[in-house]
């Protein structure tokens, strides 16, 4: 079971819940589970079959690079954050 923190602007989908538990061996499976729990969640973070360009995912404090195929360790802490480049 991973702990997923819900972005503030998506909490309408979760009835205000700011975190939830979800299962999935990969990020794709995890997002599918979130979409089951909170219909519409997937469309907010996935675009043409990949993570939306504006979204980055942090697993246990590290921004991941594997996209939807990224493995999700059990009991990990997951955050959806804006993607940042830099100068």
């Amino acid at each position: 079971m991973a702990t997923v923190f819900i972005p503030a602007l998506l909490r309408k989908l979760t009835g205000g819940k700011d975190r939830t538990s979800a299962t999935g061996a990969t990020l794709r499976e995890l997002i599918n589970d979130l979409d089951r729990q909170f219909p519409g969640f997937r469309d907010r973070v996935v675009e043409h079959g990949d993570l939306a360009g504006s979204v980055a995912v942090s697993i246990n404090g590290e921004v991941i690079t594997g996209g939807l195929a990224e493995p999700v360790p059990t009991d990990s802490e997951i955050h959806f954050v804006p993607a940042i480049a830099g100068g």
Partner: protein
Amino acid sequence: MATQEAKFKVIGTRPIRHDGVDKVTGRARYGADINLPGLLHGKVLRSPHAHARIKSIDVSAAAALPGVKAVITSADFPKLKSGVVPLGELAMNPLYMSMNLLAHDKVLYDGHAVAAVAATSPHIAEEAVKLIKVEYEVLPHVQDVRSAMKEDAPILLPDVRTSGAPEKSDKQTNIASQVRFARGDLDVGFKAADIVVEREFNTAMVHQGYIEPHNAVAQYNADGQATIWTSTQGAFTARDQCGLVLGIPASSIKVVPAEIGGGFGGKIPIYLEPLALLLSKKSGKPVKLVMSRGEVLRATGPTPGSHIRVKMGANKAGKITAAQVWMAYEAGAFPGSPVGAGCMTILAPYDLENLQIDGFDVLVNKPKTAAYRAPGATNAAMGAETVIDELAEKLGIDPLEFRRINGAKEGTAQPAGPKYLRIGYLETVEAAKNSAHYKSPLPKVSGKLVGRGVASGFWFNAGFQSSATVNINTDGTANVVTGSPDIGGSRASCAMIAAEVLGLKAEEVHPVVADTESIGHTDMTGGSRVTFATGYAVYEAAQDAVNQLKQRAATLWKAKPEEVVFQDGVVSRTTNGQESMSLKELAGKLPRAGGPVGGRASVNPRGVGPAFATHVVDVAVDPETGKVDILRYTATQDVGKAVHPSYVEGQMQGAVAQGVGWALNEEYFYDEKGTLRNAGFLDYRVPTCLDLPMIETILIEVPNPGHPIGIRGVGEVPIVPPPAAIANAIYRAVGVRMTELPMSPPKVAKAVLEKK
């Protein structure tokens, strides 16, 4: 990874940079220095209006001028459809990119490119541009975020809807996107506060101000292959962007990165490259385009002006109990300000239970913003760090002690949520506290009032993809090939990392910055990533070379590779100490040992180590004129591991100088027509050496656990604290809280007079 404890032989020393002699003798070739047989010179026609519909463009007179070989407009670009495509580390909308390169149906800002000409001399091209007739229908324009967010504001892009908004809407809007971070309970937090401070801030649009204007030379060949020479922060990024907007395969374009005269984020987007390529295609000749300084300021990618509201509460013990932030950033004419980064950085140095941060990306009739050194963080810090100074002052707590009480450490949740791994923020606060500067009494200056201010800053730093090869030469030296344009000494840092692994001297490693056909994909030089990520690739490639060397030695000794060790540039056989060889000896024997050795690696590393900085500044304020002089400046920073300390110091000193300019004088000054009135170095006032003191640096090395050598990015975070630190120093000097950037003499004088 274990090597952090290792004693380094090369890393941490200060060798002369490998490209140094070329750069002090004038031999280094920057983009504008490229010359080719039959070279044509191009010029760009730009909009005089902030917002207008293009009714017609007549290029016939220009095309007819003797010496003119090609003229292009947006009609020469392929039709693209709107939609974001991921491009390496960047998400881009090719349609918007194309609309920015040459205006389609509307011009959206003063200086927006409309057409381009190639001719046999720059003077003829300039005359030709004047002969292009454009009929405009001038539209109402909007240039500040608060007006642009209003219901009845002029709309820049009809197809824009607010992405990230809680509910989908079909209304036209200038709000391109929205972001929020929230946790805890604000009401509870503010109730628990003994004191609450709330302030509004306005910061001006500012430019990176690199001294070298944008440039591009393009040669299109009849076989559809093209070569572009340009000063860019990312040869591959430039190539991919050109492919997207021109609708041709990226692989048909070779980008040769010329030496680059500064970028700071502003030379990641493309402006001239596709125009030069289209002009070359039309004329059949190589074409060079070089911007004037005015074009650079009017039409490249400055960093946004912003409106920021900060409300924070703290208790008597000095603990921040709640923080609420609202910020709107100018995107410019197309979506994509760094407001997300602003929201993620503004409170990042602190451990906060109750917070809400709202950010808005707002279209205005100004140039499309681009990255600028810790994009979005500096103007945000102006808000939070001055409010924190006020809280500390009202509670009678030393501002550095206040930061120590609230400072983030390993395990602290960032405003965006994720927990920090090992970071060195508190170390920078302690270093500032213990600095000779902070312990010294304030200097006296006759006729002026003096004050001391402090502020902190945060930047994520970036990872992204890098490739490197390390080839062993027959004389036992090595060549390091990377795809990272060297903007401030990264050839040296990459060579030093390879030298460290191979047991060579820094001078025995020759770094090369390769074109897009000579090295694996490498993302842009930006995000303070080169020494971290490209350095990572170089480290891995050098290790690969070491493994090959061990195998070659094993072959020579008829031993098993695992019986061979490599240390300090010597291979030796563990089972029998007799046999050992220096890298130089081995290199000479390679033809008999299985052939040349070439290590390679490509990486997309995680474990990016964020950077923190805390700065101390003394200012003298002339209460009559409002002029602020910087008397003394000290910058402390967690630099992870300083590979070449001189260039780390240089990054810090240069960023401080840019921060001082941002704080005191730099700003985009538009008139009521929406025309930029200070599009030159005369009135866009970057600091000269007479405006700055020596800049003291304190490097703190908290190794990044995510990097084999402990490296963190260092280039960006030092620009974050200066404006806030200077504002805090001005307050201590004259007792007024400045809430606008720049804090130019008229504003400071007004504030001081109003206080009296």
